[in-house]
């Protein structure tokens, strides 16, 4: 394994691990706050139990998210020092704001987790709301930094050196809005439906459990709207990619030849005429740039990007369909909790959001290659000169495998084993 590949693999493992904890850390506080609010309004102890159990789960996940996020903030420099040297002054702004948002999140999470008996109920709920808001903000700021790598702005290139640096313009980079929206919705959709799916499974075993009913309802309340909105934000994101990163779009859709009225390849052999031009540019006759417009040495890994993209779209579509179905049943006042087919559909949806999120990051990161800053700096030129990178890659991978296993076991003990009421 070359040092470059080891560094990329270490970054991939670190991101893939952290992202799970990050999105749960963004969305779980919303679920906790809803449960606590319902407890305060109804005094139904099921909701208090739920809020407390979820907050215990969140405590574990947040801590692992916080430390794995620290690893990433160092790894940006440890693995890609040339990138940080160049990009630091430009993407430091969202990272600095993220620092403060994360501070707020950590402070009020401390109040929330340990303050049940120490602060007033109103202050406690407010702390939870602040955790939810600052968690979402902190995620958005990090995604903005990533967006800049896709559509770098806020500088002028003079003889290979960045001049006229403008950190505000860098923050307002075109990819910022679609990426941040897509990722935030992903966090709510994945976590909400993940929770709903777990409790759907438990309801299939014991359909009268009030605890699981309450949990399923709140999970759907958060997850379903996000899952239904996600395809719309995905469409927006794809149009930005089509405009700003044609090579990435070409890889996503595996378009080799530049063509007008491009068809959409659904599965090998099945094509919908004009559909890709329609989707990417909202014009059936628009020209979609193919990989032939990009020099061969600047192609991303087409097979992997295309596969990841299709996987994400497939899973996202499934989640949206199940969410619409659940919403439709709820509107017709049907009892969701005994609807076996819906419960099974939700069980299947539980891991989908997390897999789709990973696949989506594969698309955006692999699709940008060979660039670390699109069109400006190649990943190969940014890597640290230190040899032997396979060693830290192996160490981090083993560490995260062990942590993942322990977290899974702890969560099983803390949350899944529901009270037998």
């Amino acid at each position, binding site marked *: 394994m070359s040092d470059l590949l080891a560094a990329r693999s270490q970054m991939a493992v670190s991101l893939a691990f952290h992202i799970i904890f990050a999105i749960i850390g963004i969305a779980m506080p919303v679920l906790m706050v809803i449960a606590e609010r319902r407890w305060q309004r109804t005094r139904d102890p099921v909701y208090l139990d739920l809020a407390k159990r979820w907050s*215990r789960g969140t405590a574990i996940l947040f801590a692992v998210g*916080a430390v794995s996020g620290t690893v990433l903030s160092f790894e940006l420099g440890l693995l890609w020092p*040339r990138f940080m040297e160049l990009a630091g002054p430009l993407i*430091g702004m969202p990272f*600095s704001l993220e620092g403060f948002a994360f*501070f707020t999140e*950590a402070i009020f*999470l401390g109040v929330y987790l340990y303050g049940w008996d*120490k602060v007033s109920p109103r202050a406690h709920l407010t702390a939870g709301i602040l955790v939810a808001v600052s968690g979402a903000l902190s995620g958005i700021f990090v995604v903005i930094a990533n967006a800049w790598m896709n559509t770098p702005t806020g500088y002028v290139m003079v003889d290979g050196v960045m001049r006229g640096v403008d950190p505000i313009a860098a923050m307002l980079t075109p990819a910022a809005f679609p990426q941040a929206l897509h990722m935030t919705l992903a966090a709510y959709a994945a976590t909400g439906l993940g929770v709903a799916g777990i409790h759907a499974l438990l309801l299939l075993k014991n359909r009268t459990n009030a605890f699981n009913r309450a949990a399923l309802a709140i999970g759907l309340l958060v997850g379903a709207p996000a899952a239904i909105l996600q395809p719309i934000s995905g469409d927006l994101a794809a149009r930005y990619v089509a405009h700003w990163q044609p090579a990435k779009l070409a890889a996503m859709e595996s378009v080799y030849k530049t063509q007008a009225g491009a068809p959409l390849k659904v599965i090998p052999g099945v094509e919908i005429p004009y559909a890709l031009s329609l989707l990417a540019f909202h014009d059936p006759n628009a020209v979609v740039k193919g990989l032939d417009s990009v020099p061969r040495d600047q192609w991303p890994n087409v097979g992997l990007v295309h596969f990841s993209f299709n996987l994400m779209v497939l899973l996202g579509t499934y989640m949206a369909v199940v969410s619409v179905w659940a919403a439709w049943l709820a509107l017709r006042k049907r009892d969701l909790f005994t609807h076996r087919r819906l419960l099974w559909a939700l069980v299947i949806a539980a891991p989908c959001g997390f897999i789709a999120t990973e696949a989506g990051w594969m698309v955006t990161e692999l699709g940008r290659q060979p660039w670390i800053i699109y069109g400006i700096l190649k990943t190969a030129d940014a890597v640290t000169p230190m040899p032997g990178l396979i060693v830290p890659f192996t160490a981090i991978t083993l560490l995260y495998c062990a942590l993942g296993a322990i*977290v899974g076991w702890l969560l099983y003990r803390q949350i899944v084993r529901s009270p037998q009421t």
Partner: protein
Amino acid sequence: MLLLSHSVAGIILIALTAYVLLGGADFGGGIWDLLADGPRKGRQRDLVARAIGPVWEANHVWLILAMVLLFTCFPRAFARIAIALHVPLTLMLIGIVLRGSAFVFHVYGGGGGRVFAIASLVTPVLLGMCVGAVASGAIGSAAGIPGETFYAVYVAPWLTSFSIAVGLLTLTCFAYLAAVYLTLETTDPELQADFRQRALFSGVWLLMMAGLAFALAPHRNVLDHRLGVLMGVAALAAFGALWQRRYRLARIAAAGQVALILWGWGVAQYPYMLPPDLTIAGAAAPKITLEVVLIAIGVGAIVLFPSLYYLFRVFKGKQEAFGSESPVP
């Protein structure tokens, strides 16, 4: 520009000071968990867990903030540090991950108390060794010279007797701070006495390690005399207050003592960020970045400080009678 870059460098030093005084004490708590001893072993450990629980994550963010400000405002320095100190920083990160996750696993009944304690012991040494490598001037010019061996470029800068001494000094500082703070975390006189004894003991170790680091320092003019006098005053005040069981005063004096050590480092290498050749101004990002970041820090501070005040008032205010709180939420 000079004023601007020095202001941001000053803020980074303040953030590092906050990390050492707050986050450092959380690591110190882990060290006392490891060294828990005597008939009150279990209660000592419970006290540590209860003291760290609500605040360690917030305290940890100071390190992230310092790091983010460093790479935003001094990207050249960050890149050099990241290359030359790759090995100890990666080990430190593994320590940070193990400490944090083992602590929550431990609190939520998943075991891992031992890992938490050992990681709390090892991580501060690595952090101190990185600081020592910077202070010794080994990062300034050594990084990335082609043709040198791996050891010469990536190990030798931080594996020196001086940086090991700074690592041990960091460890004793953290243990000392934690012991002093823990005397105020309980109203139980027996536990107070345990940690008073530990504070005095680690205070002596701290002085010895500080002397050792000073003796091994590669440059003679490392300590500003006025700061040296202040450190001596703070150390004496802390010992005196501990002796007389005036724990609030001891907390202030001990924190001051450790902060002065850190600032002594800052003053010693001023105006260099990475001695011997990279100055603060020379490593700085473009002016506009520094300006925008300073504004962001100002706005962030308006949110941050009241929130921090609230957190510490809720959890570190006057303690209720012993036994009224459970260590696990």
